[in-house]
Protein backbone atom coordinates (compact mmCIF):
# COMPACT_ATOMS: atom_id res chain seq x y z
CA UNK A 1 0.00 0.00 0.00
CA UNK A 2 1.02 3.60 -0.63
CA UNK A 3 0.03 6.86 1.02
CA UNK A 4 -1.35 9.64 -1.17
CA UNK A 5 -1.84 13.17 0.18
CA UNK A 6 -4.24 15.62 -1.38
CA UNK A 7 -2.15 18.77 -0.92
CA UNK A 8 -5.11 21.04 -1.57
CA UNK A 9 -7.18 19.50 1.19
CA UNK A 10 -4.39 19.08 3.74
CA UNK A 11 -4.23 22.00 6.18
CA UNK A 12 -1.38 20.66 8.28
CA UNK A 13 -3.23 19.82 11.50
CA UNK A 14 -1.03 16.85 12.26
CA UNK A 15 -3.64 14.38 13.45
CA UNK A 16 -2.18 11.87 11.02
CA UNK A 17 1.14 12.36 12.78
CA UNK A 18 -0.52 11.59 16.11
CA UNK A 19 -1.86 8.33 14.67
CA UNK A 20 1.20 7.24 12.67
CA UNK A 21 4.34 9.16 13.68
CA UNK A 22 6.52 6.79 11.68
CA UNK A 23 4.89 7.95 8.45
CA UNK A 24 3.88 11.57 8.96
CA UNK A 25 5.32 14.75 10.36
CA UNK A 26 4.18 18.34 10.09
CA UNK A 27 7.10 20.64 9.29
CA UNK A 28 7.80 24.09 10.76
CA UNK A 29 6.12 25.72 7.79
CA UNK A 30 2.93 23.76 8.49
CA UNK A 31 3.41 21.53 5.44
CA UNK A 32 2.92 17.82 5.90
CA UNK A 33 6.00 15.70 5.31
CA UNK A 34 5.41 12.07 4.40
CA UNK A 35 8.32 10.30 6.07
CA UNK A 36 7.57 6.97 4.43
CA UNK A 37 5.27 6.55 1.49
CA UNK A 38 4.95 2.79 1.55
CA UNK A 39 2.84 1.04 4.16
CA UNK A 40 3.79 -2.49 5.18
CA UNK A 41 1.53 -5.12 6.65
CA UNK A 42 2.66 -4.34 10.20
CA UNK A 43 1.91 -0.62 10.07
CA UNK A 44 -1.29 -0.87 8.07
CA UNK A 45 -3.53 -0.42 11.12
CA UNK A 46 -1.71 2.78 12.11
CA UNK A 47 -1.86 4.14 8.59
CA UNK A 48 -5.58 3.41 8.34
CA UNK A 49 -6.06 5.19 11.66
CA UNK A 50 -4.19 8.18 10.22
CA UNK A 51 -6.50 8.26 7.20
CA UNK A 52 -9.56 8.17 9.46
CA UNK A 53 -8.25 10.81 11.83
CA UNK A 54 -7.67 13.48 9.18
CA UNK A 55 -10.31 16.21 9.59
CA UNK A 56 -10.09 17.25 5.95
CA UNK A 57 -10.10 13.74 4.40
CA UNK A 58 -6.79 14.56 2.73
CA UNK A 59 -5.26 11.10 2.94
CA UNK A 60 -5.79 7.94 0.93
CA UNK A 61 -4.18 4.53 0.84
CA UNK A 62 -3.83 2.99 -2.58
CA UNK A 63 -2.49 -0.39 -3.55
Amino acid sequence: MKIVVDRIKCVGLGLCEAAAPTHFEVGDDGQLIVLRETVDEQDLAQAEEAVRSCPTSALKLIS
Partner: protein
Amino acid sequence: MSAPVVSKRLVIVGASLAGLRAAEGARASGFTGEIVLIGAEEHLPYDRPPLSKQYLGDAEIPYLRDPDSYVHELNVRAVLGNPVTALRPDEKAVVVNGESISYDSLVIATGAAPRELPGYSEIPGVVTLRNLEDTHSLRRALDATHNITIVGAGIIGAEIATAARKRGCEVTVIEATHYPLERAVGREMGLVLSQMHPRNGTDLRCGVTLAELRTEGEGGKVSSVVLSDGSEIKTDLLLVSIGVVPTTSWLKDSGIELHPDGSIACDEYLKTSLDDVYAAGDAISWPNAHTGRTGRLETWTSANEQGAIAGRNAAGVEDALAYSTVPYFWSDWYGHRIQFAGTAHDAEPEVVIGGYEEEKFVVLYRSGDHVVGALAVNEPAKIMKDRRRIQQRSTWAEAVEHYKELGRKLALIQQETV
Protein backbone atom coordinates in the same frame (compact mmCIF):
# COMPACT_ATOMS: atom_id res chain seq x y z
CA MET B 1 -17.17 -6.69 29.89
CA SER B 2 -19.08 -9.91 29.19
CA ALA B 3 -18.79 -11.69 25.85
CA PRO B 4 -20.30 -9.53 23.11
CA VAL B 5 -23.69 -10.29 21.64
CA VAL B 6 -23.74 -9.56 17.93
CA SER B 7 -26.46 -7.18 16.86
CA LYS B 8 -28.57 -7.78 13.73
CA ARG B 9 -29.75 -4.27 13.20
CA LEU B 10 -27.76 -1.25 14.28
CA VAL B 11 -29.67 2.02 14.25
CA ILE B 12 -27.79 5.32 14.47
CA VAL B 13 -29.60 8.54 15.33
CA GLY B 14 -27.80 11.67 14.12
CA ALA B 15 -26.16 11.71 10.69
CA SER B 16 -23.11 13.85 11.18
CA LEU B 17 -19.53 13.19 12.20
CA ALA B 18 -20.07 10.85 15.18
CA GLY B 19 -23.01 9.07 13.51
CA LEU B 20 -21.11 8.36 10.30
CA ARG B 21 -18.04 7.20 12.21
CA ALA B 22 -20.29 4.84 14.19
CA ALA B 23 -21.40 3.20 10.95
CA GLU B 24 -17.83 2.99 9.69
CA GLY B 25 -16.57 1.72 13.05
CA ALA B 26 -19.18 -1.05 13.11
CA ARG B 27 -18.25 -2.15 9.59
CA ALA B 28 -14.53 -1.98 10.35
CA SER B 29 -15.07 -4.35 13.28
CA GLY B 30 -16.61 -6.90 10.92
CA PHE B 31 -20.29 -6.17 11.46
CA THR B 32 -22.33 -7.49 8.53
CA GLY B 33 -25.85 -6.77 9.82
CA GLU B 34 -28.15 -3.97 8.77
CA ILE B 35 -27.26 -0.33 9.53
CA VAL B 36 -29.85 2.45 9.47
CA LEU B 37 -28.52 6.01 9.79
CA ILE B 38 -31.24 8.51 10.68
CA GLY B 39 -30.61 12.25 10.41
CA ALA B 40 -32.76 15.33 10.94
CA GLU B 41 -30.93 17.26 8.24
CA GLU B 42 -31.58 16.64 4.56
CA HIS B 43 -27.88 16.27 3.80
CA LEU B 44 -25.59 13.31 4.05
CA PRO B 45 -22.97 13.85 6.75
CA TYR B 46 -20.79 16.90 6.14
CA ASP B 47 -18.04 18.53 8.12
CA ARG B 48 -18.73 21.48 10.43
CA PRO B 49 -15.32 23.11 11.09
CA PRO B 50 -15.14 24.49 7.51
CA LEU B 51 -18.50 26.22 8.01
CA SER B 52 -16.85 29.01 9.97
CA LYS B 53 -13.57 28.78 8.03
CA GLN B 54 -13.04 27.89 4.34
CA TYR B 55 -16.70 27.25 3.56
CA LEU B 56 -17.79 30.61 4.92
CA GLY B 57 -15.52 32.04 2.26
CA ASP B 58 -17.19 29.99 -0.52
CA ALA B 59 -16.00 26.45 -1.08
CA GLU B 60 -17.66 23.16 -2.00
CA ILE B 61 -19.94 21.37 0.46
CA PRO B 62 -17.48 19.60 2.75
CA TYR B 63 -18.99 16.10 2.69
CA LEU B 64 -17.37 13.71 5.15
CA ARG B 65 -17.65 10.79 2.77
CA ASP B 66 -18.31 10.36 -0.92
CA PRO B 67 -22.14 10.49 -1.20
CA ASP B 68 -22.05 7.62 -3.72
CA SER B 69 -20.35 5.24 -1.30
CA TYR B 70 -23.07 4.85 1.34
CA VAL B 71 -25.17 2.20 -0.31
CA HIS B 72 -22.56 -0.08 -1.88
CA GLU B 73 -19.33 0.42 0.02
CA LEU B 74 -20.69 1.04 3.53
CA ASN B 75 -24.00 -0.74 3.06
CA VAL B 76 -25.92 1.81 5.10
CA ARG B 77 -29.51 2.90 4.67
CA ALA B 78 -29.73 6.66 5.29
CA VAL B 79 -33.10 8.03 6.41
CA LEU B 80 -32.76 11.80 6.13
CA GLY B 81 -34.80 14.93 6.61
CA ASN B 82 -36.78 14.17 9.78
CA PRO B 83 -35.77 14.14 13.43
CA VAL B 84 -36.27 11.13 15.65
CA THR B 85 -38.92 12.19 18.13
CA ALA B 86 -38.76 9.41 20.72
CA LEU B 87 -36.76 6.48 22.01
CA ARG B 88 -38.79 3.58 23.41
CA PRO B 89 -36.37 1.26 25.15
CA ASP B 90 -39.12 -1.24 26.13
CA GLU B 91 -39.96 -1.81 22.48
CA LYS B 92 -36.33 -1.36 21.41
CA ALA B 93 -37.45 1.18 18.85
CA VAL B 94 -37.11 4.81 17.84
CA VAL B 95 -39.85 6.91 16.30
CA VAL B 96 -39.33 9.00 13.20
CA ASN B 97 -42.12 10.73 11.33
CA GLY B 98 -44.66 8.76 13.39
CA GLU B 99 -43.13 5.49 12.24
CA SER B 100 -41.36 3.11 14.59
CA ILE B 101 -37.96 1.71 13.59
CA SER B 102 -36.71 -1.15 15.74
CA TYR B 103 -33.11 -1.81 16.74
CA ASP B 104 -31.01 -4.53 18.30
CA SER B 105 -28.47 -1.92 19.23
CA LEU B 106 -28.54 1.84 19.01
CA VAL B 107 -26.00 4.65 18.79
CA ILE B 108 -27.16 8.16 19.68
CA ALA B 109 -25.15 10.92 17.99
CA THR B 110 -27.48 13.91 17.94
CA GLY B 111 -24.74 16.41 18.75
CA ALA B 112 -25.46 19.85 20.04
CA ALA B 113 -27.19 23.07 19.00
CA PRO B 114 -26.25 26.70 19.65
CA ARG B 115 -27.47 28.17 22.92
CA GLU B 116 -29.84 31.01 22.12
CA LEU B 117 -30.40 34.36 23.76
CA PRO B 118 -33.90 34.03 25.18
CA GLY B 119 -36.35 36.40 23.53
CA TYR B 120 -34.02 37.47 20.73
CA SER B 121 -33.82 34.54 18.34
CA GLU B 122 -36.95 35.50 16.35
CA ILE B 123 -35.72 39.00 15.49
CA PRO B 124 -34.52 39.42 11.89
CA GLY B 125 -30.77 39.93 11.82
CA VAL B 126 -30.12 37.76 14.89
CA VAL B 127 -28.34 34.56 13.83
CA THR B 128 -26.39 31.50 15.06
CA LEU B 129 -24.09 29.14 13.16
CA ARG B 130 -24.26 25.35 13.28
CA ASN B 131 -25.34 23.93 9.95
CA LEU B 132 -25.04 24.43 6.18
CA GLU B 133 -28.16 26.58 5.91
CA ASP B 134 -26.87 28.84 8.70
CA THR B 135 -23.64 29.29 6.77
CA HIS B 136 -25.44 30.15 3.56
CA SER B 137 -27.52 32.81 5.26
CA LEU B 138 -24.56 34.12 7.23
CA ARG B 139 -22.54 34.43 4.04
CA ARG B 140 -25.36 36.36 2.36
CA ALA B 141 -25.86 38.50 5.45
CA LEU B 142 -22.16 39.34 5.69
CA ASP B 143 -22.20 40.52 2.08
CA ALA B 144 -24.95 42.99 2.94
CA THR B 145 -23.59 43.94 6.37
CA HIS B 146 -21.35 46.69 7.49
CA ASN B 147 -21.57 46.41 11.27
CA ILE B 148 -21.66 43.04 12.95
CA THR B 149 -21.82 42.38 16.67
CA ILE B 150 -20.82 38.96 17.93
CA VAL B 151 -22.03 37.84 21.34
CA GLY B 152 -19.43 35.55 22.90
CA ALA B 153 -15.65 35.74 22.51
CA GLY B 154 -15.25 31.98 22.14
CA ILE B 155 -13.55 30.04 19.41
CA ILE B 156 -16.28 30.08 16.81
CA GLY B 157 -17.06 33.74 17.53
CA ALA B 158 -13.42 34.58 16.82
CA GLU B 159 -13.46 32.63 13.54
CA ILE B 160 -16.53 34.51 12.39
CA ALA B 161 -14.93 37.81 13.44
CA THR B 162 -12.00 36.80 11.23
CA ALA B 163 -14.26 36.17 8.23
CA ALA B 164 -16.18 39.39 8.80
CA ARG B 165 -13.01 41.52 9.03
CA LYS B 166 -11.79 39.93 5.82
CA ARG B 167 -14.96 41.14 4.14
CA GLY B 168 -14.35 44.63 5.45
CA CYS B 169 -17.02 44.67 8.17
CA GLU B 170 -16.72 46.64 11.40
CA VAL B 171 -16.77 43.97 14.09
CA THR B 172 -17.56 44.22 17.79
CA VAL B 173 -17.27 41.18 20.05
CA ILE B 174 -18.93 41.32 23.44
CA GLU B 175 -18.12 38.92 26.23
CA ALA B 176 -19.93 38.68 29.55
CA THR B 177 -16.92 37.57 31.61
CA HIS B 178 -13.59 39.31 32.00
CA TYR B 179 -11.79 36.16 30.93
CA PRO B 180 -12.62 35.01 27.41
CA LEU B 181 -11.72 31.40 26.54
CA GLU B 182 -11.00 30.59 30.17
CA ARG B 183 -12.58 27.14 29.96
CA ALA B 184 -10.66 26.26 26.79
CA VAL B 185 -7.14 27.54 27.44
CA GLY B 186 -7.15 28.98 30.97
CA ARG B 187 -7.38 32.56 32.20
CA GLU B 188 -3.95 33.86 31.31
CA MET B 189 -3.74 32.43 27.81
CA GLY B 190 -7.36 33.41 27.11
CA LEU B 191 -6.31 37.02 27.63
CA VAL B 192 -3.23 36.59 25.45
CA LEU B 193 -5.20 35.05 22.55
CA SER B 194 -7.96 37.65 22.85
CA GLN B 195 -5.42 40.37 22.07
CA MET B 196 -5.60 39.20 18.47
CA HIS B 197 -8.99 40.91 18.22
CA PRO B 198 -7.90 44.53 18.77
CA ARG B 199 -4.70 43.90 16.80
CA ASN B 200 -6.82 42.99 13.82
CA GLY B 201 -9.27 45.82 14.13
CA THR B 202 -12.02 44.02 16.04
CA ASP B 203 -13.47 45.89 19.01
CA LEU B 204 -13.47 43.43 21.93
CA ARG B 205 -15.49 44.41 25.00
CA CYS B 206 -15.28 42.16 28.04
CA GLY B 207 -17.39 42.26 31.18
CA VAL B 208 -20.47 43.57 29.40
CA THR B 209 -23.75 41.96 28.43
CA LEU B 210 -26.52 42.78 26.02
CA ALA B 211 -29.03 45.07 27.72
CA GLU B 212 -31.28 45.91 24.80
CA LEU B 213 -31.72 45.26 21.13
CA ARG B 214 -33.10 48.08 18.97
CA THR B 215 -34.81 47.39 15.66
CA GLU B 216 -35.93 49.35 12.63
CA GLY B 217 -39.48 49.86 13.82
CA GLU B 218 -41.77 47.24 15.34
CA GLY B 219 -40.81 43.74 14.14
CA GLY B 220 -38.08 45.18 11.92
CA LYS B 221 -34.45 44.24 11.48
CA VAL B 222 -31.90 44.78 14.21
CA SER B 223 -30.35 48.26 14.03
CA SER B 224 -28.29 48.60 17.19
CA VAL B 225 -27.47 46.99 20.51
CA VAL B 226 -27.25 48.66 23.89
CA LEU B 227 -24.78 47.15 26.32
CA SER B 228 -24.93 46.85 30.09
CA ASP B 229 -22.45 49.75 30.42
CA GLY B 230 -24.89 51.99 28.57
CA SER B 231 -22.98 52.19 25.28
CA GLU B 232 -24.85 51.74 22.00
CA ILE B 233 -23.35 50.02 18.95
CA LYS B 234 -24.75 50.31 15.45
CA THR B 235 -25.40 46.74 14.24
CA ASP B 236 -27.01 45.20 11.17
CA LEU B 237 -26.21 41.66 12.17
CA LEU B 238 -26.07 40.09 15.63
CA LEU B 239 -24.36 36.72 15.76
CA VAL B 240 -24.95 34.76 18.94
CA SER B 241 -22.11 32.38 19.76
CA ILE B 242 -22.40 31.58 23.44
CA GLY B 243 -21.83 27.87 23.45
CA VAL B 244 -23.92 24.82 22.64
CA VAL B 245 -26.52 22.66 24.35
CA PRO B 246 -26.66 18.87 23.78
CA THR B 247 -29.56 17.90 21.51
CA THR B 248 -31.24 15.50 23.92
CA SER B 249 -34.71 16.92 24.64
CA TRP B 250 -36.20 14.21 22.38
CA LEU B 251 -34.94 11.65 24.93
CA LYS B 252 -36.73 13.04 27.94
CA ASP B 253 -39.38 10.30 28.20
CA SER B 254 -37.01 7.46 27.44
CA GLY B 255 -35.67 7.05 30.95
CA ILE B 256 -32.08 7.42 29.74
CA GLU B 257 -29.78 9.04 32.30
CA LEU B 258 -28.86 12.63 31.47
CA HIS B 259 -26.47 14.96 33.29
CA PRO B 260 -27.77 18.30 34.60
CA ASP B 261 -26.28 20.02 31.52
CA GLY B 262 -28.49 17.83 29.31
CA SER B 263 -25.69 15.59 28.07
CA ILE B 264 -26.14 11.82 27.89
CA ALA B 265 -24.33 9.98 30.71
CA CYS B 266 -22.01 7.34 29.24
CA ASP B 267 -19.48 4.99 30.80
CA GLU B 268 -15.94 4.52 29.49
CA TYR B 269 -17.28 2.12 26.83
CA LEU B 270 -19.64 4.90 25.70
CA LYS B 271 -22.61 2.85 26.84
CA THR B 272 -25.60 4.77 28.18
CA SER B 273 -27.76 3.77 31.14
CA LEU B 274 -30.05 1.79 28.77
CA ASP B 275 -29.34 -1.72 27.51
CA ASP B 276 -27.79 -1.90 24.04
CA VAL B 277 -27.80 1.89 23.71
CA TYR B 278 -24.49 3.70 23.11
CA ALA B 279 -23.79 7.35 22.42
CA ALA B 280 -20.99 9.52 21.01
CA GLY B 281 -19.98 13.06 20.12
CA ASP B 282 -21.07 16.49 21.30
CA ALA B 283 -24.18 15.04 22.98
CA ILE B 284 -22.39 13.03 25.67
CA SER B 285 -20.40 13.22 28.89
CA TRP B 286 -18.08 10.36 29.71
CA PRO B 287 -15.29 9.63 32.19
CA ASN B 288 -12.03 10.37 30.39
CA ALA B 289 -9.45 8.11 32.02
CA HIS B 290 -6.68 10.29 30.70
CA THR B 291 -7.73 13.46 32.50
CA GLY B 292 -9.59 11.70 35.30
CA ARG B 293 -12.60 13.93 34.72
CA THR B 294 -16.13 13.30 33.52
CA GLY B 295 -17.51 15.83 31.10
CA ARG B 296 -18.29 16.92 27.58
CA LEU B 297 -15.76 17.62 24.87
CA GLU B 298 -17.17 19.52 21.94
CA THR B 299 -14.37 18.85 19.52
CA TRP B 300 -14.01 17.27 16.11
CA THR B 301 -11.39 14.77 17.22
CA SER B 302 -13.38 13.38 20.13
CA ALA B 303 -16.58 13.07 18.09
CA ASN B 304 -14.58 11.33 15.36
CA GLU B 305 -13.01 8.80 17.72
CA GLN B 306 -16.00 8.28 19.98
CA GLY B 307 -18.24 7.59 17.00
CA ALA B 308 -15.97 4.81 15.79
CA ILE B 309 -15.78 3.22 19.23
CA ALA B 310 -19.49 3.51 20.00
CA GLY B 311 -20.29 1.90 16.63
CA ARG B 312 -17.88 -0.94 17.23
CA ASN B 313 -19.09 -1.55 20.78
CA ALA B 314 -22.76 -1.38 19.77
CA ALA B 315 -22.22 -3.88 16.94
CA GLY B 316 -20.85 -6.40 19.43
CA VAL B 317 -18.67 -8.32 16.96
CA GLU B 318 -15.44 -7.63 18.82
CA ASP B 319 -14.77 -7.04 22.49
CA ALA B 320 -15.76 -3.59 23.64
CA LEU B 321 -13.10 -0.87 23.76
CA ALA B 322 -12.90 1.87 26.36
CA TYR B 323 -12.34 5.44 25.16
CA SER B 324 -9.95 7.96 26.62
CA THR B 325 -8.09 10.80 24.95
CA VAL B 326 -5.81 13.78 25.28
CA PRO B 327 -8.27 16.46 24.13
CA TYR B 328 -7.25 18.42 21.04
CA PHE B 329 -8.70 21.31 19.08
CA TRP B 330 -7.54 23.81 16.51
CA SER B 331 -8.80 27.11 15.24
CA ASP B 332 -7.75 29.74 12.70
CA TRP B 333 -7.93 33.41 13.70
CA TYR B 334 -6.87 36.27 11.44
CA GLY B 335 -4.49 33.99 9.58
CA HIS B 336 -3.01 32.51 12.76
CA ARG B 337 -3.17 28.81 13.52
CA ILE B 338 -4.10 28.05 17.15
CA GLN B 339 -3.76 24.47 18.44
CA PHE B 340 -4.40 23.16 21.92
CA ALA B 341 -3.83 19.73 23.44
CA GLY B 342 -4.57 18.39 26.91
CA THR B 343 -6.11 20.46 29.65
CA ALA B 344 -5.57 23.92 31.13
CA HIS B 345 -7.56 23.08 34.23
CA ASP B 346 -5.70 23.83 37.47
CA ALA B 347 -2.42 24.20 35.58
CA GLU B 348 0.26 26.88 35.27
CA PRO B 349 1.14 28.04 31.75
CA GLU B 350 4.73 28.84 30.77
CA VAL B 351 6.18 29.96 27.44
CA VAL B 352 8.79 27.45 26.25
CA ILE B 353 9.58 28.82 22.80
CA GLY B 354 8.86 32.05 20.90
CA GLY B 355 6.96 35.03 22.25
CA TYR B 356 3.57 36.75 22.29
CA GLU B 357 4.88 39.74 20.33
CA GLU B 358 5.86 37.61 17.33
CA GLU B 359 2.50 35.79 17.58
CA LYS B 360 4.46 32.56 17.34
CA PHE B 361 4.95 30.54 20.50
CA VAL B 362 4.36 27.35 22.45
CA VAL B 363 3.05 27.43 26.00
CA LEU B 364 3.12 24.31 28.15
CA TYR B 365 0.83 23.83 31.15
CA ARG B 366 2.27 22.41 34.32
CA SER B 367 0.42 20.57 37.04
CA GLY B 368 2.66 19.28 39.83
CA ASP B 369 5.63 17.61 38.18
CA HIS B 370 3.85 16.87 34.91
CA VAL B 371 3.03 18.53 31.66
CA VAL B 372 -0.76 18.39 31.16
CA GLY B 373 -1.44 20.82 28.32
CA ALA B 374 0.09 22.62 25.36
CA LEU B 375 -0.96 25.67 23.36
CA ALA B 376 0.74 26.40 20.05
CA VAL B 377 0.25 29.58 18.04
CA ASN B 378 1.72 29.39 14.53
CA GLU B 379 3.88 26.45 15.59
CA PRO B 380 2.23 23.61 13.64
CA ALA B 381 5.18 21.26 13.88
CA LYS B 382 5.26 21.21 17.66
CA ILE B 383 1.81 20.41 18.98
CA MET B 384 1.49 16.72 18.13
CA LYS B 385 4.84 15.99 19.72
CA ASP B 386 3.71 17.75 22.88
CA ARG B 387 0.42 15.90 22.71
CA ARG B 388 2.36 12.65 22.63
CA ARG B 389 4.36 13.68 25.68
CA ILE B 390 1.13 14.56 27.49
CA GLN B 391 -0.29 11.19 26.50
CA GLN B 392 2.78 9.43 27.86
CA ARG B 393 2.52 11.47 31.08
CA SER B 394 5.97 12.97 30.63
CA THR B 395 7.39 14.94 33.50
CA TRP B 396 7.60 18.70 33.28
CA ALA B 397 11.39 18.50 33.20
CA GLU B 398 11.35 16.15 30.18
CA ALA B 399 8.91 18.28 28.26
CA VAL B 400 10.83 21.48 28.91
CA GLU B 401 14.22 19.88 28.22
CA HIS B 402 13.02 19.11 24.72
CA TYR B 403 12.51 22.84 24.09
CA LYS B 404 15.80 23.81 25.72
CA GLU B 405 17.56 21.42 23.37
CA LEU B 406 15.71 22.99 20.45
CA GLY B 407 16.75 26.43 21.66
CA ARG B 408 20.41 25.36 21.80
CA LYS B 409 20.22 23.99 18.25
CA LEU B 410 18.62 27.18 16.96
CA ALA B 411 21.32 29.28 18.65
CA LEU B 412 24.00 27.17 16.98
CA ILE B 413 22.42 27.56 13.55
CA GLN B 414 22.25 31.32 14.08
CA GLN B 415 25.92 31.44 15.08
CA GLU B 416 26.90 29.50 11.99
CA THR B 417 24.99 31.81 9.67
CA VAL B 418 26.48 34.99 11.19
